[in-house]
């Protein structure tokens, strides 16, 4: 059982803190900080339960380098057009699934409310983070964060990262 592994037990609050910091960066519109939660060699992808079940590898966002994450932020700041909006992430407690060679696997449920410029608030996405977490430069970082949305439907557009 994962919960009885002393290493995982000790890491659990640290992973919860990592998730909390990650969510605050996005929700506070500090998108420039967002790539810093990832390791230099990383994979970030947004998919859905159904796509995952079908074995489809494509993502709504797909980055296999920290540079691609920075490019996503730059595009949002400089190129893309979308109405002003923000997220409120509610991130559940991470379940630590195991550790191999310094890589910790975790699964964490999330819920995201999107707040539009006119004040409209909608439940925008729910899902799970499937993470591979490593320690890099003295901090925990995501080597892999696969965002598995429960639904494959997106209202209007997906601008900000989940």
């Amino acid at each position: 059982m994962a919960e009885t592994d002393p290493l995982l037990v000790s890491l659990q609050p640290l992973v919860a803190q990592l998730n909390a910091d990650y969510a605050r960066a996005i929700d506070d519109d500090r998108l420039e900080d967002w790539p810093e939660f990832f390791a230099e060699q990383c994979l970030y992808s947004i998919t859905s339960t159904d796509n995952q079940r079908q074995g489809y590898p494509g993502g709504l966002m797909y980055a296999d380098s920290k540079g691609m994450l920075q490019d996503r932020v730059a595009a949002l700041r400089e190129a893309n057009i979308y109405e002003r909006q923000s997220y409120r992430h509610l991130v559940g407690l991470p379940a630590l699934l195991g550790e191999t060679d310094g890589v910790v696997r975790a699964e964490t449920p999330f819920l995201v409310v999107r707040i539009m410029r006119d004040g409209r608030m909608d439940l925008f996405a729910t899902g799970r983070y499937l993470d591979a977490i490593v320690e890099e430069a003295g901090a925990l970082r995501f080597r892999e964060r696969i965002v598995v949305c429960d639904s494959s439907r997106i209202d209007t557009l997906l601008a900000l990262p989940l």
Partner: protein
Amino acid sequence: MSTTESQHTWPGDTLTRVPYWVYQDEANYRAELRRIFEGPVWSYVCLESDVERPGEFRTTFVGEMPVIVVRAEDGSICAFENRCAHRGALIALDDRGKARSFQCIYHAWTYDLRGNLTGIAFEKGSHGRGGMPASFCKEEHGPRKLRTTTLHGLVFASLSPQAPPIAEYLGQEILGRIERVLHRPVRVLGRFVQVLPNNWKLYFENVKDTYHASLLHAFFGTFRITRLTQGGGVIVSPDGGHHASYTIDRADDRVSTAYREQGIRSEHQNYRLADPSLLDCVDEYGDGIKLQILTVFPNFVLQQIENCLAVRQILPKGPESMELHWTYFGFTDDTPEMHRRRLKQLNLVGPAGYVSMEDGCVGGFVQRGAATAADELSVVNMGGESAESQDTRATEASVRGFWKAYRRYMGV
């Protein structure tokens, strides 16, 4: 001046002025479902590989009509209304699956893979009492059946016996442009649905509108995936309904200052990618065409943007709402490098696409902007008044083509 079933009128015979009520009016929308989507058109319904083996099915829509598409025992593809002949309940509830027959869960009426009613629960009643009248003929009852046709791995369906053969429906030029992209067996990479707050026609026009692409989508313009100063053109089918637009990379655009001089937002001199591998594109078709966007009236889009391939299905959901069903794909024989390239380039399209997320909101901007302007007119004059093919993309010829076809089908 002519009228639809709505209270509104068209502004004469021009294709260059479109009244905003056409995106708003409920009665007109209902007429569209009947005259266009249930009329003599071919609607895209799924990929042929989605229903590869006998019994495999998909549920989708033609207009707002729920439809089952299924591979029959003899290998043919059948489509029929997803509506029980008894009380009208959905027959199939899943998005996809495999079946030997279909049974409505309400009263267990049964259908074969062709949509024929084959079984009625307690048809002869119980203990000699009740049951259906002896005169009831199963052959005379069933969901409406659609014709199907396949084209390079695509499946189209039509409710009307009047729809011409698909090749004739599309015309040679559009046919050739579909063949160009879909020349090998496809491998699906992902599927997503975008719910858009606008009338379906606003999206279909947007896809045909080559004028906006490099202006709205700064990413397009900045990285010269498409620019109006590059080579390219718009092919409009003779009936106006279908189109293909394309961009050819032309070296002299590198020094063009047209965007800068006009102060266009999409001219970003200092915007660079930290990881340019996203734009590590190869000319896989060997013809220098970086981008080809193709539509088939009334609901289908085939897209090639560099090496990023997708089909999009437009589903109307009321006068001011629609769904856009994305299917990202590559080919079954893609090399690992090409597969990886396509996964990266998927960032360009879809609900979060660098060059398509704006299309998700701009239709809503029109819907909201013109909310109280039912009898005002939008202007579709770029490139003149005709709906003919042109060797420029600074034109709205294919948008006018849409209205030419629309008005013929609608009889207005």
